[in-house]
């Protein structure tokens, strides 16, 4: 571009640089503020969630236990019961928020969620099969229940997503075909689920319904470790891949003109989003609306053109743990967290709708 210059370039409004050696980026104070505020709230809500319950523990005592103090009962309740449950909620919520943010950015559609690939439906059918047929006669269900419910659900979710992808592959992937095939495969999985609910004993059906609503009841360290491990691997991959998201938001021709390999970048991002959603669903069941609503909220808080990834992860965790706190303590009985996220998320979706309508007519 040298030679074009007529006057020295000034700083660009709204794009203050941050540079350090070979690293450079744009200083976005609102992104940082939203992320940090979310993080602070998350710590607070998580601490309250650990403290509240049949056996109340004060915030100070919770902190004392976490750094190695507290009496034996407190240690047991915090470290063996409430901390792993809360951590599962944090990790699952973060995975869902991140997965939703990636999917919505690629699909350029605020209503897209990883569910369109059948992850949730597949995981649900498999989980229902394990609960209802559990250890039963069939070879496959026997193997799946031996592997444990979360692993079985994970495999079911990933298998279904792979099936949808494979069935919609025909000289490349077309978004439209992918969605329609996803609907078809999802319908089969849901039919299997409802059949299982009908043939089950009532107590099994109740157990399956709890799982199908999304719940953090009785989640222990065995749930924390796999999700944690998955996030340690997938979050950095997602943040690296996020570099191409800006280009992918344009139409296909513009993105290709910018030197993006569309199939490869989209494929990799979808894979990450599906893996995150599958891991989250396997651990806590399909928790409604987190993947759908959180990225939209964060995009508005930050004021950007696409959902911010890290902020979506943090706020996904915040919403999930906050909803679990309400689910555990609000009504006396313990509700599945998915009911609370749906009751909180649905009105927000309606609010978005009303605002968008006004925007159109204004």
């Amino acid at each position: 571009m040298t030679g074009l210059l007529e006057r020295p370039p000034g700083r660009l409004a709204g794009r203050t640089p941050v540079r350090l050696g070979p690293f450079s980026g744009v200083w976005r104070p609102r992104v940082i503020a939203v992320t940090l505020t979310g993080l602070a709230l998350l710590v607070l809500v998580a601490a309250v969630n650990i403290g509240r319950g049949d056996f109340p523990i004060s915030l100070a005592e919770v902190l004392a236990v976490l750094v190695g103090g507290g009496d034996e009962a407190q240690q047991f309740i915090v470290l063996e019961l409430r901390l792993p449950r809360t951590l599962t909620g944090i990790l699952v919520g973060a995975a869902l928020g991140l997965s939703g943010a990636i999917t919505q950015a690629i699909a350029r559609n605020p209503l897209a969620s990883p569910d369109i690939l059948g992850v949730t439906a597949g995981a649900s059918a498999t989980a229902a099969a394990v609960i209802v047929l559990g250890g039963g006669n069939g070879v496959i269900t026997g193997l799946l229940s031996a592997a444990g419910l979360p692993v079985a659900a994970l495999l079911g979710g990933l298998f279904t997503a792979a099936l949808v992808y494979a069935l919609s592959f025909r000289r490349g992937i077309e978004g439209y075909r992918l969605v329609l095939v996803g609907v078809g495969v999802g319908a089969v999985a849901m039919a299997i689920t409802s059949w299982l609910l009908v043939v089950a004993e009532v107590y099994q059906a109740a157990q399956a319904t709890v799982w199908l609503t999304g719940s953090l009841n009785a989640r222990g360290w065995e749930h924390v470790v796999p999700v944690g491990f998955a996030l340690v691997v997938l979050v950095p991959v997602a943040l690296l891949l996020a570099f191409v998201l800006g280009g992918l938001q344009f139409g296909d021709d513009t993105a290709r003109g910018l030197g993006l390999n569309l199939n490869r970048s989209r494929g990799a991002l979808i894979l990450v989003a599906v893996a995150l959603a599958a891991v989250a669903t396997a651990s806590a069941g399909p928790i409604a609306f987190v993947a759908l609503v959180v990225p939209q909220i964060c995009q508005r808080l930050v004021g950007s053109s696409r959902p911010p990834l890290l902020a979506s992860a943090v706020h996904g965790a915040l919403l999930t743990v906050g909803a679990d706190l309400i689910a555990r303590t609000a009504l006396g009985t313990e509700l599945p967290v998915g009911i609370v996220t749906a009751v909180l998320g649905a009105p927000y979706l309606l609010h978005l709708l009303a605002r968008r309508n006004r925007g159109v007519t204004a």
Partner: protein
Amino acid sequence: MTTATATPAGAGLPGAPAGQRGAVALRRRRRLVILGLLALLAVAALASLAVGAKPIPLPVVWDAIFFPTGTEDGIVVRSLRMPRTVLGIGVGIALGVAGALMQGHTRNPLADPGLLGVSAGAAFLVVIGIYALGVTSLFGYVWFAFAGALAASVLVFVLGSLGRGGPTPVTLALAGVAVSALLTALTSALVLADTNTLDAFRFWAVGSVAGRDAGTVVQVAPFLGLGLLLAAVNAPGLNLLALGEDIARGLGQPVQLTRWVGLIAITLLTGAAVAACGPIGFVGLVVPHVARSLTGPDHRWLLPASGLAGAVLLLAADVIGRVLVRPAELQVGIVLALVGAPFFIALVRRRRPASL
């Protein structure tokens, strides 16, 4: 397909003859499609009367319908299989027509009547009926389900019409998603609170035409009839809307009125269907695609073809469900997904679904 949609009104313009020939061929094909579907429906209905835990030969079926003598087979046919078959036909037609209307109004090939919150609303009130009022008969569910379906779709319309833009397909779909999710969550909360409710609800929620008697048919028939009438009235207007709202308005079509008539028809049809049989998915989504590939996008042909194809599919799925795990039965909702989905996927893979 697109070139063959020349309407008779276009015949006076120069250069029409080629299009006219195409239009004649299309008209003949549409007639054949309707006749073919009627024949298929007759076969499916006979199968539905004859096949079951106890197979009954066709001559006996014939005698039982027209010369009832009170034999055991005759009673099975008249009191069990006939209402079930009639209901299957009615509900299949309703779902097929409602699906075609829904896709026409939203111009979205993925739109399903369930999007308006109908199924979720019906489910919620059925659960309330079971939980709070102790209703446990299929006969009793019908009114709860119908009321829930109507209430939910009214709520969706109101929320979808917020702001001055009035209801648009997109806002309706969004409102439908939100309302459905909310009601589904509340339904789950109720069934989890009470095992007996769950036990009764899960059999309703799977979607079935089994165990319905003539009373159920009579209960929902008026709503089905009214819905079909409104759908028929709606077809020409919908054809204009397919050209875009501005063009429809320019051609003198009252757009909002057309939308409301269509929405009321969809609500009546799906509400009656879900009241009678529980939530049955897939018919409303898949059948219009198949019908559209046979008749083209003209709703005056698409709606009847879609209704007939819906009835054929529903009856066929019901018969298959009776044969597959005899002497037990697989509910029609499950069979529909298991049989319909692979077919649907094959259709999607073969080509883009005919455009709307």
